[in-house]
C-alpha cells in the first residue's frame, strides 16, 4: 500500500468520530465564544457586536462571584469526600463476607436513581421539625434547625446530597481496580510482617492511582456539572447561598433569556474546566504508576 493511501485510509477511519466531535463539541464551543461577544438578540433583530461588554458585566455581577465561590466550596467538599467514601466502601465490599452482593447493590443504588428523585427524597430528610435529620438530632436533644433555609448550612446540605449520589458510582471503579490487584502481593506483605495500614498505604493505594486519576477527573467535572438537585431543593437560595456556576448559567440563559451573557458565563466555565483537565493530565499523569 502506498504511503498516501494509508494516510487517507487512516483519516477515513477517524472521520466518523471526528465529525461527530466537531459537530457536537467543537462547533458549539466556537459558537459560544462567538456569541459571548454579542448582545442578546431581542424579537428577531440581529445581535449587535459588543466586544467585551458581557465580560465587564460579569466582573460587576455579584451573583456570578457568589456562584463561583460557592462552586469552589462545593468542589472542595464533593471531590475529596466522594473519593474517600468510594475507597472505603470499595474496600469493605471487596472483603469476603456475607451479604456482600446486597451491600454492593445498596451502595450503588444512589447512582441508578435520577437526581431529581434523589433531591425530592433529601428535601424531606432536611425538612425542619419532622424530617429524618431532625428526628435523629432530636433524639440527642439538639435544637431543630432549618437546614436548607439557613445560608450557613444550605450549601453543606446540597454538597452532602452530591457526595451521596456520586460515591457509589466511583466505588464501582475502585472495586474493579481492587480485584485486579494480585493476591500474591497481600500474601508477600503478610509474610514480611507489614501491617494492613502499611500494606494499604504503600501497595494498594499506589496501585489504585490510575483509577484515582480517572475518578478525580470525573469528580471535578461533576463538581461543575451536577446541579439538578439545586433546582429542586433550593433554586439557588436562600439569597444565592447555593447558587452554583452552571445553575447561574441556566438562570441567565433560560429564565432571563440573556443568551449573550449566558454565553460569556459558559466560556468562563469552559476555561475553568479546560485548565483543570489540562493540569490533571500534564502534572498528575506523571505521578501515576501504570502497571
Amino acid at each position, binding site marked *: 500500500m502506498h504511503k498516501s493511501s494509508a494516510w487517507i485510509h487512516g483519516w477515513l477511519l477517524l472521520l466518523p468520530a471526528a465529525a461527530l466531535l466537531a459537530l457536537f463539541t467543537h462547533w458549539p464551543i466556537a459558537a459560544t465564544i462567538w456569541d459571548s461577544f454579542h448582545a442578546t438578540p431581542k424579537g428577531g433583530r440581529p445581535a449587535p457586536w459588543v466586544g467585551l461588554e458581557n465580560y465587564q458585566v460579569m466582573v460587576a455581577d455579584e451573583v456570578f462571584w457568589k456562584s463561583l465561590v460557592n462552586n469552589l466550596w462545593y468542589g472542595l467538599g464533593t471531590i475529596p469526600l466522594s473519593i474517600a467514601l468510594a475507597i472505603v466502601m470499595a474496600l469493605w465490599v471487596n472483603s469476603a463476607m456475607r451479604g456482600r452482593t446486597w451491600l454492593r447493590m445498596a451502595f450503588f443504588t444512589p447512582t441508578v436513581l435520577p437526581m431529581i428523585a434523589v433531591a425530592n427524597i433529601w428535601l424531606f430528610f432536611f425538612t425542619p421539625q419532622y424530617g429524618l435529620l431532625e428526628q435523629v438530632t432530636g433524639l440527642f436533644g439538639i435544637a431543630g434547625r432549618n437546614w436548607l*433555609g439557613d445560608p450557613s448550612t444550605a450549601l453543606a446540605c446540597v454538597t452532602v446530597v452530591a457526595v451521596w449520589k456520586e460515591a457509589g458510582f466511583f466505588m464501582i471503579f475502585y472495586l474493579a481496580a481492587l480485584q485486579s490487584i494480585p493476591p500474591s502481593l497481600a500474601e508477600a506483605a503478610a509474610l514480611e510482617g507489614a501491617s494492613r495500614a502499611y500494606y494499604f498505604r504503600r501497595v494498594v493505594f499506589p496501585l489504585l492511582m490510575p483509577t484515582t486519576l480517572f475518578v478525580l477527573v470525573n469528580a471535578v467535572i461533576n463538581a461543575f456539572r451536577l446541579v439538578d438537585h439545586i433546582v429542586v431543593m433550593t433554586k439557588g*437560595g*436562600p439569597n444565592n447561598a447555593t447558587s452554583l456556576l452552571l445553575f447561574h448559567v441556566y438562570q441567565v440563559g433560560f*429564565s432571563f433569556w440573556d443568551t449573550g451573557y449566558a454565553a460569556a458565563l459558559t466560556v468562563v466555565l469552559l476555561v475553568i474546566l479546560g485548565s483543570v483537565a489540562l493540569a490533571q493530565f500534564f502534572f498528575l499523569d506523571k505521578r501515576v504508576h501504570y502497571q
Partner: protein
Amino acid sequence: MKRTWQLMVAALATAASAAAAETEITFYYPVAVGGPITRTIDQMSADFERENPGIKVKPVYTGTYQESIVKALTAHKAGQPPTTAILLSTDMFTLIDEDAIVPFNELATGADDQAWMKSFYPAFMANSQAGGKTWGIPFQRSTIVLYWNKELFKEAGLDPNRPPATWKEMLEYAHKLTRRDAAGNITQYGVQIPSSGFPYWLFQGLTTPNGVELMNAAGTETYFDKPEVIEALAYWVDLGRKHKVMPTGVVEWGTTPKDFFERKIAMMWTTTGNLTNVKNNAKFDFGVAMLPQARRRGSPTGGGNFYVFKKAPREQQLAAVKLAKFMTQPERAAQWGIDTGYVAVRPDAWQTAKMTEYVKGFPVAAVARDQLQYSVAELSTHDNQRVTKALNDGIQAALTGAKTPEQAMKDAQAEASRILRSYK
C-alpha cells in the same frame, strides 16, 4: 386492509384542494407527569374536535411552567412555535419583548368575541393586558389564601370557626398557637408563610393589604423601596426572628402543606391550587380564609393564561382562539375549577348548576372567588424573571437576617431600576 384505506384517503386528500385540509394546532400544556389533569385536557381536546370538525388539537405536555416557557420560546426562536400554550400570566412582557405572541384583539374581532374577552374577572385581566391589548386569556388561575387547623385552634382556646382578620390578630393567634416542649424547643408554629423559590408572590399577599402595589401596569417601574413595602417585609421577618411564631430562615414552599398535615403549623399561606390536596390529606377539620388585612384586604393572583404564537399560520391562530373560547365556556370553566382547585375564571361559571351545587357541599371553595374583588396583578415587568429575582434575593436576605428589611428593599429597587432603565 386498514393500510389500503389510509392510502386511499391520502390519495384523495392530495387530489382535493388545500382548503379541505385539516388545521392542526399544537397546544403546549404545563404538566410534568400524566394523571388526572392530562386526562381532563385530553378529554376537552377530544370534545373540541367533535364540535369543530376540520380542526385537530395536539396537546403536548411540557413539564413545569419554567420548562414550558423554555420549550415554547426555544421553538419560537427556531421558527416552529406551538400554535397556543398555557404559560404563566407574568411571562406576558417577556413574550411581547421576544415578539413571540399576537394579541387576541387581532384574531377575535366579532361582537361575541368582544363580549367573551370582557367576561373574565377584572383581577385576572390585569395580568393579561398591556398597551390597550389583550395578550392572554385566563385559564388556570389561582390566588393565595390562609388555611387553618380548627383542632389546633380549639386546643389553643380560640374560636375554631373564626380565622384572623387582621395582621395584629394573626400575630396574636400565632402566639397562642405556638407550642414549646419542656426543653423550650418549639414543637408547633403558629403560622407559616413559605419563602423558597418565588417568595415575591407570597410577599404580595403582605404588600397588597398594606395598600401598595409593587409595579406599574406598563411593567416599566417597580416600587420595592416604598415605606409600606418595607413595613410589610418587616412584619414578615418579625414573625420568625422577633416573635418566634414562624420558622426562621427560608421556609420551603413544597413541604409547607405537609407541615400543615403533620400539625407542625397551625396556619399556612399557600395557593388555592392546594385546596384539593388539603381536602384529601388533612386528617382534621380545616378552614380556608382570605388573607388578613392591614390597611385593606388583598392578595395577588397567579397561574397560567392562554397565549397564541405569532409565527403560527393565521388559520391555526384562529383555530386556537376557538379552542380558548371553548375551554373557557362557563360550564367548562366551572368543571375545571372543581376538578383542579383553580379559581373558575369568570363570574357566570360560578352561577352554573354544577358550581352552585359544589359550593353548597364545600363552601370554602368560594373563598378565593370572594377574595378576587380585592386582588391585584401578580408582579410582572419587562425582563420579568430578572426583576423578580432581585426582589426574591432581597426578601430572602431579610428573612435570613443578612440584611435589614430596609436595606434589602433598597438594594432590590436599585437592581430593578438598573434592569428596567432600557424599557423606559
